[in-house]
């Protein structure tokens, strides 16, 4: 075989080796390793004289081939239990097959690439951005039904709550408290959290001085979220931190 092959024309050692097998019409399951190794080395040596670029991978394969060749030269162990002895070429063959599977399919990819290049798409209509912008600046819509009185009350409520938290003695006297936390509210809170960070430790949900009722309500909300397949939880062991992650396939988004 004349050495007119240019190493640069090959995608790599597998590509070159594969070419040699095809060119010599070799049965891939019974590679004449001596012949192929000689041809391969001849091409690689010739190329080496011209360029040292991208050579290392070709040389690695050359070494691999030489190793197989030498193992083939060794007398076969004739042990009784040598049934499991593996052909030194086996690994190379399965790699070549694997490579061939993907190489074969690139032809079809190329055809589809060509066909699909004749299909054109268009940009989003510029007027859409107006819809989106409009949505962001429409305070009227967002605050629909909210009066300033609501804000005033919300602030008072927040402050009152804070005050109660600090005054532990007084708050501990109360036997019946207004239900400040609802499961619904905590579900949407957990949903929000899981959007911001994909992984949360259970205690990160809470701040210092958190109330017991809030913990209970939040825990119930968490159970609800698991049931609704919004989050998944995991725990390394008993009493370890519970880790909350977004349920795979969950459809919650920024909305």
């Amino acid at each position: 075989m004349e050495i007119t092959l240019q190493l640069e024309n090959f995608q790599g050692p597998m590509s070159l080796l594969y070419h040699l097998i095809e060119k010599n019409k070799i049965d891939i399951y019974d590679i004449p390793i001596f012949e192929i190794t000689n041809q391969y080395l001849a091409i690689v040596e010739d190329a080496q004289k011209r360029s040292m670029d991208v050579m290392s991978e070709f040389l690695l394969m050359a070494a691999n081939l030489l190793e197989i060749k030498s193992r083939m030269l060794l007398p076969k162990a004739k042990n009784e239990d040598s049934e499991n002895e593996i052909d030194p070429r086996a690994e190379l063959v399965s790699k070549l097959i694997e490579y061939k599977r993907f190489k074969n399919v690139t032809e079809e990819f190329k055809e589809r690439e060509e066909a699909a290049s004749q299909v054109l798409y268009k940009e989003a209509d510029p007027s859409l951005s107006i819809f989106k912008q409009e949505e962001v600046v429409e305070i009227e819509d967002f605050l629909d039904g909210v009066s300033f009185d609501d804000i005033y009350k919300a602030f008072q409520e927040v402050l009152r709550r804070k005050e109660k938290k600090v005054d532990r003695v007084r708050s501990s006297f109360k036997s019946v408290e207004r239900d400040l936390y609802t499961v619904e509210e905590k579900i949407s809170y957990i949903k929000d959290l899981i959007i911001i960070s994909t992984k949360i430790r259970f205690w990160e949900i809470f701040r210092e001085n958190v109330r017991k009722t809030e913990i209970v309500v939040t825990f119930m909300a968490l159970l609800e979220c698991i049931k609704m397949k919004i989050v998944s939880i995991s725990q390394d062991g008993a009493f370890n931190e519970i880790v909350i992650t977004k349920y795979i396939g969950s459809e919650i988004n920024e909305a």
Partner: protein
Amino acid sequence: MKLNELEAVIEAVLFVSGEAVSLAVIADAISMDKATTKAIINALADKYSDEKRGIHIVELDGEYQMCTAAHCFDYIRSIYKSTKRQGLTQSLLETLAIIAYKQPVTKGQIEEIRGVNADHAVNKLVERGLVCEVGRQDAPGRPILFGTTKEFLRYFGFASTKELPQLDENIVHNSLDAAKIEE
């Protein structure tokens, strides 16, 4: 080319261009004279509107453009609205109230008062144009200070933040003292 092929090319050209295309260019694409091309486009445009299709062809000063049919407008709009639409939740309301009364205020201070992480709520409010950055606090890390926007005041009919209704002083003081103790 047969008529339906000519129509297909016109359709494809108008679709992909995304803007008005001159009669001359379309005539060129289908290798027909302008008068014939014009007749074909008009027939196609009529067909679209007779069939009450979702896309129409309009003529704009001798050029042609593909656009959505007016009767579909509300549906399109609903998609872009509904994906973002969400009312003011309790959590956002409280955060907004704290920012309104304590501005300029940092996220840390908001969290201190509400007892929960404020990132999400503050971002949402900024996104909605109710709250904005008003400066930096002269403290380690120079945290961002937030305040309400002009739009916020305008919406509730206040000329400035000084006009906000006064709070029950007792509550305010107690809470401020409390905040100091904890700091």
